[in-house]
């Protein structure tokens, strides 16, 4: 097997909770708490989970928009977790990000042409004419007409804006792109356009993706392998086929059961709907973080946090339980 392009090891990102006039730190929100995974060249790793599970923070740490509290993020042999800004700048060209909201991630006062040319001028020292020529080319690659170079972001629809967001991420010919909920803000009929575009571009440019989403449908469609997160921790990681056919972690099973499948004949299927809310990451449960909602909780789950072993962090993985 080839070496991973990205190795995330024991990644932690804690945010201090400050109180009082002197802003004393009274605790930490453990947004990401000991997360490890690999991403191989040319694949799409999906990270799925509900709000507050730390999937976005993980994605931002991968491209060093967040400095990790602890742990390492080894990209192509270099640990970028502690890299200086200057050295990181060189790697920026290889690590790019596509954001959820193309409305707020594109500067509204700058024409699309400038938006796309800017990184080439800044990082690759291209002159304006050459950069604009490449911008025009890239617009066509993402399925937009060249004349959009002179438009402003607000003149475009949401789907078109997300294409621009993708084009901008591609301008520096990156190897790895972190896509953070790239279709969640889009209309249903447009989501498939963008998902297909991402797939096509991956084939064309040999891209590696980390695809973050709460939408199981999109995750399944685009990912080769999946990481399931809950309260800052990895619950399970496996190939897409394995996750959907034979989930090992109770949380994965519950997440799949909760997904409203577009088929009315499945509405009365046997399934587990858990009660209760996701606990706060500022005060996560002791032991297994999922034990407060898990239908199979036993004593050990309340006291001991299960390590990630064989792709599942559970004292009683479902397969072994003979379910």
């Amino acid at each position: 097997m080839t070496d991973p392009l990205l190795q995330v090891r024991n990644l932690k990102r804690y945010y201090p909770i400050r109180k009082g006039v002197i802003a004393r730190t009274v605790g930490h929100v453990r947004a990401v708490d000991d997360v490890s995974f690999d991403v191989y060249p040319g694949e799409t790793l999906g990270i799925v989970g509900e709000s507050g599970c730390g999937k976005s923070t993980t994605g931002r740490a991968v491209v060093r928009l967040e400095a990790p509290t602890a742990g390492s993020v080894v990209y192509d042999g270099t640990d970028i977790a502690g890299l200086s800004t200057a050295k990181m700048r060189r790697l920026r060209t290889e690590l790019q990000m596509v954001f959820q909201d193309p409305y707020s991630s594109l500067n509204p006062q700058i024409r699309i042409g400038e938006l796309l040319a800017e990184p080439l001028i800044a990082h690759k020292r291209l002159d304006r004419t050459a950069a604009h020529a490449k911008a025009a080319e890239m617009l066509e690659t993402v399925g937009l007409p060249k004349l959009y170079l002179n438009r402003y972001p607000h003149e475009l629809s949401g789907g078109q804006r997300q294409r621009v967001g993708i084009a901008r991420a591609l301008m520096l010919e990156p190897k790895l792109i972190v896509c953070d909920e790239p279709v969640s803000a889009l209309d249903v009929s447009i989501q498939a356009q963008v998902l297909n575009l991402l797939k096509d571009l991956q084939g064309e440019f040999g891209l590696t993706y980390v695809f973050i989403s709460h939408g199981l449908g999109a995750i399944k469609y685009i990912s080769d392998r999946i990481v399931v997160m809950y309260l800052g921790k990895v619950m399970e990681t496996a190939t897409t086929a394995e996750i959907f056919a034979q989930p090992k972690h109770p949380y994965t099973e519950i997440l799949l059961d909760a997904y409203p499948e577009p088929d009315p004949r499945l509405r009365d299927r046997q399934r587990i709907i858990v009660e209760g809310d996701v606990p706060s990451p500022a005060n996560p449960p002791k032991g297994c973080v999922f034990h407060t909602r898990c239908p199979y909780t036993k004593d050990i789950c309340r006291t001991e946090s299960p390590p990630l072993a064989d792709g599942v962090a559970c004292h009683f993985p479902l397969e072994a339980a003979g379910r």
Partner: protein
Amino acid sequence: MSVTPLLQVDGLRTEFSTDQGPVTSVDGVSFSLAPGETLCLVGESGSGKSVSALSIMGLLARNGRITAGSVLFEGQDLVGLPDRELRRVRGHAIAMIFQEPMTSLNPVLTIGDQLAETMILHLGLTKAQARQRAIELLEKVGIPRAKDVVDDHPHRLSGGMRQRVMIAMALSCEPKLIIADEPTTALDVTIQAQILRLMRELSAETGTAMIFITHDLGVVAEMADRVAVMYAGQVVEETDVYTLFDDPKHPYTSALLRSIPHITTPAGDRLNPISGSVPNLLHMPTGCRFHDRCLQAMDRCATEPPELLPVASQHSVRCWLYDETEVPA
């Protein structure tokens, strides 16, 4: 097959005056709802599903008004009804649940006070009776420690719990109809599953009819008895939920169904997106509003607007593909 409808919306047209001129958000929407039935209004942004609901409730913003059509609720036309009489219907016979419970709950009042307010107003309960009933309602919608929560303020509750409070509030006056506008869109998927199940159980138990507005066909499949698919301010197809998923007639409906990823479909299948984007209300296409994105468009589709016509019993479609020749006698 003719039950007297609880609600009959006919030719509803709602216009907003904007800086760029008048915009017709809802253009000739018709549907009906039998007692106890759940109708899903499904559509993308700008399809007019929310504006339809607000029009029925008489809750349009100041720049909006109903320019044509009628909304018969138990035989009484709500359009043009004086505010005072409309208020009697609203909250009592018809209740509404919104997407974001935090913005529809008053942050400075306790949960109990907000629940009690409508019951004192509409049902004439005393303060003590209303409080007792508020606790019962909170228990009914699955809120743990209802006796304590009744004295809490909304910010103390999670999103899912707030939405349960909204449901309790909607149920408080035993309405005949609940209009729910994307009630689970802001919630996580495991919480959404809880809320959807709760709403189904409550509607079955109390016999309350529901208009359930959503953009999510998965939610439609979970909730609907019947479905009206909306596109660009119009209903383009209306039928029962099974027919809609098994045998969609309108090209938009079938294209939408083909474009969404299922978690049960095999890997490797490619999604079939709908090309183009949802039209801008200020520049509505002539003829059929879907024609420039439709794979089966014919010449006449670009110029002649089709009407919503029956293609079978209880199944209507707004499309020239089903012109008179196909209508069963």
